[in-house]
């Protein structure tokens, strides 16, 4: 008993000849179908090239346009010829001219020898198929498709819609349950001859002639009527991308194909010399091998589909620029924004970077220059400290910073003195953790040695800016994790907010804070605010400070480090 190959070809006939010769010289008869649309000269050349081999036949040529009946007709003709001409053949393997055997044909023959009654054909009911393009599954069988999908897409769609609207349905032939599957199968003589010579063939053919993409359903459905033992998988490794286009294998897939342990793969790029040379070499595959295992390849291809359809969140580049309606993560990783903290505490940056083990920047959006951690003038990815470059495209600046430092959480200070254009972008970013102590901008003014008139004007300006920022943060569309305290609220009990923030930044270090940064000296701050009021300004963002010399909390705090429980 032996194995015969039916081969459908249309281009790269030299490669098809090479494969046919490989199989034929190893004792497997081959029937070749050449697409009618292939130039006659090429087809004749192919016949001449293979004329020295006694076990190769050429079947009647049909035009094989994608998705049409021609492909099935071609397969039928070639398979019938195979059964008639080579009575010793038990399994017929349907292959294409772009197939490449990955394992010696002896191994495939032995594999089939051990399973003499099994039909290998992927055959799935229409309800269970999730992979068809065009969204048509069951309707492939119940509607009519006189227009070519690739050439007359509009007519195709309109006609489908009309039939749906008027509920026009075709009747299925008796006993037929529609199944779909990969068109590359391997069937036994018994099953194949029952399909080809069965009494109902004329009826089935008439029906499938009008089915859309019949090469994925004709044998897949009929085999259910005649076969006794179906193994619903294809022996040919064949992957499709998310557009339904077959993946092509190149030289660099050599190791991948080797490890798959599959018998045959398609499609191979015709110029992949290394693949053809390696797998067609006489010594190929002398080591014993396992069951076909396309799982490894499946995982890799699933990843490729994800890269194509979902991309890398937070990356904006030459071939990824989502529009407004397709936001899938503004930035690449979580980051923290602090407003007012470096004013309230004297050494907030160093304290936080020590505690959370991350790099803490100064005011990245400061008006004169970008204050990177450690005063660097260029940062990861060669980000410049030029304020002009940053302000030219602040969104790119921020997404670049977070992208360039993936794996290391970024923390930075923000304030009403900074360039505010980025505020809305941050507020709408689920990756942002924004903590604001409102009114803290007054502390440096309070400590400064400037004329009060100047201070008053600047305080009013900063308060206005900060109020706008807070209004953005309180909008309904905000996705950032926002926490806002007034200055008075915050210094009353600074521990709790700090603990929450740090827990969020480094969730694994679940220890309690034993040390908080040093609070700025706020003695007399209440009086300072009262002075602002007396000058006609209305400081609101700071909260309620008593006008006395004392802070709202217990005195002497800033001298002693906090120790909690």
């Amino acid at each position: 008993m032996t194995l015969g190959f039916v081969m459908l070809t249309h281009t790269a006939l030299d490669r098809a000849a090479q494969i046919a010769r490989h199989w034929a010289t190893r004792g497997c008869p081959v029937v070749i179908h050449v697409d009618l649309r292939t130039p006659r000269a090429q087809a004749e050349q192919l016949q001449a090239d293979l004329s020295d081999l006694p076990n190769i036949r050429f079947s009647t040529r049909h035009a094989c346009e994608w998705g049409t009946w021609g492909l099935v007709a071609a397969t039928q003709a070639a398979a019938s010829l195979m059964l008639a001409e080579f009575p010793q053949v038990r399994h017929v393997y349907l292959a294409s001219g772009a197939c490449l055997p990955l394992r010696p044909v002896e191994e495939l023959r032995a594999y089939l020898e051990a399973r003499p009654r099994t039909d290998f054909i992927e055959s799935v009911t229409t309800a269970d198929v999730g992979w068809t393009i065009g969204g048509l599954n069951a309707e492939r069988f119940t509607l009519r498709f006189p227009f070519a999908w690739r050439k007359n897409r509009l007519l195709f769609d309109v006609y489908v819609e009309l039939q749906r609207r008027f509920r026009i349905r075709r009747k299925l032939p008796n006993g037929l349950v529609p199944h779909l599957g990969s068109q590359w199968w391997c069937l036994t003589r018994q099953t194949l001859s029952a399909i080809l010579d069965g009494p109902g063939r004329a009826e089935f053919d008439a029906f499938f002639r009008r089915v859309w993409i019949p090469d994925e359903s004709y044998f897949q459905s009929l085999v259910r009527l005649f076969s006794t033992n179906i193994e619903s998988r294809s022996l040919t490794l064949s992957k499709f991308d998310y557009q339904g286009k077959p993946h092509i294998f190149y030289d660099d897939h050599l190791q991948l194909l080797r490890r798959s342990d599959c018998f045959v793969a398609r499609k191979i790029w015709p110029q992949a010399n290394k693949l053809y040379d390696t797998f067609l070499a006489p010594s190929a595959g002398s080591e014993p091998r396992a069951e076909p295992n396309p799982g490894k390849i499946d995982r890799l291809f699933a990843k490729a589909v994800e890269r194509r359809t979902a991309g890398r969140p937070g990356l904006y580049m030459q071939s990824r620029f989502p529009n407004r309606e397709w936001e899938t993560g503004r930035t690449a990783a979580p980051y923290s924004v602090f407003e007012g903290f470096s004013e309230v505490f004297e050494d907030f940056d160093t304290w936080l970077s020590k505690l959370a083990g991350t790099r803490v920047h100064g005011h990245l959006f400061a008006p004169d220059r970008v204050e990177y951690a450690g005063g660097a003038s260029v940062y990861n990815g060669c980000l410049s400290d030029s304020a002009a470059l940053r302000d030219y495209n602040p969104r790119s600046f921020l997404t670049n910073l977070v992208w360039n430092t993936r794996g290391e959480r970024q923390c930075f200070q923000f304030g009403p003195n900074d360039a505010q254009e980025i505020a809305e972008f941050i507020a709408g970013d689920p990756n942002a953790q924004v903590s604001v102590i409102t009114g803290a901008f007054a502390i440096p003014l309070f400590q400064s040695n400037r004329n009060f008139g100047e201070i008053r004007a600047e305080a009013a300006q900063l308060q206005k800016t900060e109020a706008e920022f807070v209004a953005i943060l309180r909008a309904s569309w905000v996705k950032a994790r926002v926490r806002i305290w007034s200055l008075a609220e915050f210094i009353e009990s600074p521990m709790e907010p700090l603990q929450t923030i740090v827990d969020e930044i480094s969730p694994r270090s679940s220890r309690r804070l034993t040390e908080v940064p040093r609070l700025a000296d706020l003695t007399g701050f209440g009086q300072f605010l009262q002075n602002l009021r007396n000058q006609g300004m209305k400081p609101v963002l700071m909260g309620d400070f008593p006008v006395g010399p004392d802070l709202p909390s217990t005195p002497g705090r800033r001298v002693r480090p906090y120790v909690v429980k």
Partner: protein
Amino acid sequence: MGALPHAHPILDLPAPQRDLQHLWQAWRLRQRRRRLIFRALRKRRDLTLVADRTAGLARTAILCVLVVRNEAERLAHFLAHHRRLGVDHFLVVDNASTDATPALLRDQPDVSLWQTAASYKRSRFGLDWTNWLLLRHGHGRWCLTLDADELLVYPHWETRPLPALTRWLDDHGQDSFGALMLDLYPEGPLTAKGHRPGDDPLATLRWFDAGNYSVQVQPRMRNLWIQGGARARAFFATDPRRAPTLNKLPLVRWHWRYAYVNSTHAALPPRLNAVFDETGGERISGVLLHTKFLPSAVEKAAEEKGRRQHFANPSRYAAYYDGLLADPVLHCPASLAYTGWRQLEGLGLMSRGGWL
């Protein structure tokens, strides 16, 4: 009609629309494209044929079009690199070179050569000549339009030559292919290490900026506008808007009715500019390794500054030329050394899209 914004920053690009204003825009772009093609037809008279070897080129041949001036030191490596990629034929316009460039090109079996002494600036920086050669020879073919200091790399380029890429693009209905121009620079001052004609420029120009690119989309033609890299950082830190544009469309399946608009940064019809995915996914893209900063860049800056043939308004770029003339060190502590396309892909400077 409301005015279109200057450029859309990240996540500000509206989804494509088909209202009256956009139809009007489309019509105006169509007129513009016709003018560009007409201009190209007119400017063909600038070109004097030196060697035409295009006869007998296959319909599937991959062409490479370039306009050169005094590029002898780079050409040997440029030709070798792109021959290896699978370019079948080079169409070259020599714009009054005074070095060995014409001699080097004249006798190459796969180069067709034209010469002109006409103004580079008045041919829209050589683009009219390019558009003409593409119109005449590129129709129906995949065409690579480059400068002599650009080396195209793309995912898997070492194992999958251009015919593999273009077939894949064909299969996926993509007529154009985008690439980011990546400025490469040496470790020290530009002139510190010598470079002999024919040497691999990547041996000295090993460093690049990995992540300081500003990305926007211009609304009119929906083309990208990427700026940044070493030049923006070193020369345009106070005037970023003028920093060079880095996005390009070097590879297009040409049609005689197409036209490049502004270098190869943008093309018409506008759908050619849609090389980026707008729905969150990644399309395939490549990188043009920019080998401008060989030692000769300093000397060339002096010449260009004098010739005033580059940039629409050369006086605004005086600071840029002066920066170059000072033989700058572009390398900085955050610079990365180029190791290959996988590195660039990992950094997000190019993408393999779905091409596994």
